[in-house]
């Protein structure tokens, strides 16, 4: 099996609390892997470590076959990893459109020398970026608020923007931290379809934290279950649902029909 992300024995403590405890798991290239678990299980913390936002206390994280433990987020981005945040991290004083336009990496206009001495090239590239951002914003049904400051968007709109970022670049591994929370279900259907398309047509790998079981059930195979900082199970959704312990701890009873 070909693991894009391979987490080996990673731990993270916050003060007295062990958020992630010697956790190992891996994500296969080209898969849509789900990560579920009760609140406070350490899922987001694990994401933060994989994406370089926090450094693990111990353990290693492999990405594309290389040890990336302790690398900065922007370095991981360069290697093709992009993440979204559970609590939307918008650029609140920039418009929705600009929020998307800033995403593509290595824009020539991001170098001072280029902006000063090669304005033509910068402008051409920027026009392309803008077009792409406009397309994405249309897809997300946010066209009417493209000039609104992102800080003024509604909770769900911010989440959509968060998701839109993933469509702005050719990252081949995307980490999604609860994109569905607060997003309208109808729109979510479209999003799910889009994720599936990116996965099958473009070969993106997705690693998805989600509490929405419908979505997990529709998209993910395999599903990894975390509890108290450790991986406790992995397998297809049906298998997970059949495990009475997980159902008790996570789904609560009565289980709703999927």
């Amino acid at each position, binding site marked *: 099996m070909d693991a894009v992300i391979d987490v080996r024995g990673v731990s993270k403590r916050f003060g007295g609390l062990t958020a992630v405890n010697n956790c190992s798991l891996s994500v296969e290239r080209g898969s849509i892997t789900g990560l579920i678990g009760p609140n406070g299980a350490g899922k987001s913390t694990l994401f933060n470590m994989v994406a370089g936002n926090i450094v693990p206390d111990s353990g290693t994280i492999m990405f594309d076959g290389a040890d990336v433990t302790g690398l900065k987020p*922007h370095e991981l981005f360069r290697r093709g990893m992009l993440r979204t945040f559970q609590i939307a991290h918008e650029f609140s004083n920039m418009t929705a459109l600009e929020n998307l336009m800033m995403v593509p990496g290595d824009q020539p206009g991001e170098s001072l020398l280029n902006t000063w001495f090669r304005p033509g090239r910068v402008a051409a590239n920027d026009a392309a970026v803008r077009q792409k951002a406009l397309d994405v914003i249309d897809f997300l049904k946010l066209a009417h608020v493209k000039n609104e400051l992102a800080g003024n968007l509604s909770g769900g709109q911010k989440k959509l923007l968060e998701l839109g970022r993933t469509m702005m670049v050719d990252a081949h591994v995307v980490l999604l931290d609860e994109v569905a929370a607060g997003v309208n279900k109808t729109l979510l259907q479209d999003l799910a379809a889009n994720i599936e398309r990116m996965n099958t047509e473009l070969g993106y790998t997705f690693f998805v934290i989600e509490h929405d079981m419908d979505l997990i059930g529709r998209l993910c195979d395999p599903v990894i279950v975390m509890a108290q900082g450790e991986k406790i199970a992995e397998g297809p959704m049906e298998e997970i649902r059949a495990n009475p312990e997980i159902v008790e701890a996570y789904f609560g009873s009565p289980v709703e029909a999927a």
Partner: protein
Amino acid sequence: MKRSLLLFAGLFVLVILVGLATGAPFTSRLLVEAAAYALIALGLNIQWGYGGLFNFGILGFIMVGGFATMFVSYPVNAAFWGSDGPMMLGRALLAFGAGALLVIGARRLDRFGITGKLRTTAIVLAWIFAYILYRSQIDPAAAYIESTAGFVGGLGLHPVLGWAFGGVLAAGVAYIIGKICLGLRTDYLAIATIGIAEIIRALIKNMEWLTRGTLTVTPIPWPTPLPQQLQTMGFDPSSSFVWARLGFFALVLIVLVLVLVLLHRAYGGPWGRMMRAIRDNHIAAGSMGKDVTGRQLEIFVLGSVLMGIGGAMLVSFTQILDPNSYQPINHTFLVWVMLIVGGAGNNLGAVFGAVLIWIVWVMSDSVSQGLFTIVSNWTEAIGWGAIPDITTRSVQMRVFVLGLVITIALRYAPRGLLPEVIRRER
């Protein structure tokens, strides 16, 4: 756009009024200083307006620039170069280098498998040893130079080179400060930079062998002809002032316009967008592939360069390097007031604020005297008697006038007179 045209027209009228009231020579002086401050305010705008970096150590960079231009342009001190001073300084420099190597070596110990407490101890010891080594060389050298030649003197080069060196030196200092402090959160960065500025001030003030400390260095040459020189060429005194200062002003203006054009290009494009993104949310920006610390350092250095150049210009213009005249109130805070009143995040706003506040600051002297005379006449008229010590007391009120202008301006334009423009699509 309309608003800025209107405001700049108003500013122009204000300058004309000041000119009528105070005469052309004084106004030309005011313009030169205002332009230099505009450059400094632009530097701060880059740091705060673009980058959200709370630099309250502007004073330090202005001072570094001032020292640089003094060092480059002040005439060569033959007494120093003819003495043992250069040799001793050379040794001190070597000691400094050796100490630096030692520290760097200690920091790299982890490559040899020495980590943790042991490495930390080694680093601390290296620092201490390097400090002692350096002090053992520099202290006698400093004492020797101070007692024989007075101070090192300058290099006797052209002042414009001095400005450039001011920029470079400020960049170097900013780089070091940035490396240490940029990880701090906003308010903490502010107080840390204030502190570092105070340390720079203490150094420049007390390194007499290099800066003459509180004894001041003067007169520092001009890049353009001085009024005296114009007078020997046949100008009458009053117009010699105006023309000499206009010459200086032209030079400053060229730099200012150049900087404005470059900044406009950068800030309007993807670079500016990236910087605003980092300012708004650096965690997200990092996850979107932007090298947050690197870019913040870039912006901190770039802004500091402008402050250094501006500071160099001011020293060139006043022809004196006097560490005592650098006070937070009339450097750091004044520049902040300029930027916030003008409009953070807007280059034209920064320039506008700089000129406006500088005029207010300079004129507050006469304005408060005028105000006072009016009040005094009034109290006299209603029988309370005139205010005693009117001249001496009224100048105390100049800070009051400045304070009043600040609070009124902010009250009616909390985001600045020319606020940051939100870049909306049509």
